[in-house]
């Protein structure tokens, strides 16, 4: 593959594709990343400091109290030259600045929707729409939740017709994998080059 880079003669540097898993609190982001990841579900943390981000010099920050926000993180190896990294987004509005970093260079996103709290995923949808980042919506089917038709959910979310909307169970690897496939096919379609069915 022409994407492969080499570090001198020594090692092949794989291509890493970044996919974001977004949605409201409790929508199943952590569950989905864990179900799909081949490594134990990892968390990476980012540090919030009183001075905020965008400040280069925080002299004295070591004595200021800071707090961390955890991001779920998982890996799927496609082949030795190609890896998919999943990043669960922090759920709160005040962490938007972390989203910008996560979204930078991302292939696309999965927005998880919980039909009991549909409005919780509006901010995620807005975020990706405004930045032109391709996304699909996965309706996570919680036990006991009333079943809505996909058409009803699509209308409630005011989704563009070309945005894929699929049912899923975030606990189930096969189900989660189908959501990711839907996303990659959507990315390809947006570029006018459909991926033929294998």
């Amino acid at each position, binding site marked *: *593959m*022409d*994407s492969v*880079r080499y*570090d001198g003669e*020594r090692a092949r*540097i*794989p*291509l*890493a594709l970044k996919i974001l898993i977004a949605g409201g609190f409790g929508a199943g982001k952590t569950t989905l990343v864990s179900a799909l990841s081949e490594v134990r579900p*990892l*968390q*990476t*943390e*980012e*540090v*919030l*400091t*009183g001075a*905020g*981000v*965008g400040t*280069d*010099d*925080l*002299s004295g920050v*070591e004595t200021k*109290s*800071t*707090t*961390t*926000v955890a991001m779920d*993180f998982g*890996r*799927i190896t*496609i*082949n030795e030259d190609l890896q*998919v*990294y999943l*990043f669960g987004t*922090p*759920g*709160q*509005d005040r962490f*938007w*600045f972390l989203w910008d970093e996560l979204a*930078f*260079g991302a*292939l696309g996103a999965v927005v998880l929707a919980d039909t009991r709290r549909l409005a919780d995923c509006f*901010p995620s949808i*807005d975020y990706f729409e*405004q930045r032109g980042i391709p996304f699909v919506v996965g309706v996570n089917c919680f036990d006991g939740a009333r079943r809505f038709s996909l058409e009803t959910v699509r209308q409630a979310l005011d989704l563009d017709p070309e945005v894929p909307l699929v049912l899923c169970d975030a606990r189930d690897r096969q189900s989660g*994998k189908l959501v*990711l*496939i839907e996303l990659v096919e959507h*990315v*390809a379609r947006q*570029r006018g*080059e459909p*991926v033929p069915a294998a």
Partner: protein
Amino acid sequence: MRTESPGPQHEWLDGDAGPVVRPYTLTGGRVRSAVGGFDLVAFVLAEPGADLAAHPELQPEHRRLVELAGRPVPVAELAADLDLAVGVVRVLLGDLLARGVVAVHQPPRTAYLPDNDILKAVVSGLRAL
């Protein structure tokens, strides 16, 4: 949608925030590495001839990073493995890069737009899961 920068820090300290910590003690208060931000999926690879004995000023965490980077490892994975915040790992990596002990391979600018062959490979790889 709220896009303004986060408010005063006490607003962060609720159930969603992690424990209050002082993670930048390790970096002597530096929050930016000297050489700019490394992407979360930038791959880090130790230089084969790297001689850590020549750098007694480095911390144990620097040394762990070099060990882990014996194969190409992305920044986010290093942070998870070391249980350190990404921002801290970036500063430490900057120190290592400045000493020529590691190489950092930023993702290609077009990573978000891989060619169709790559997308096909991803789809068939996912189908095989």
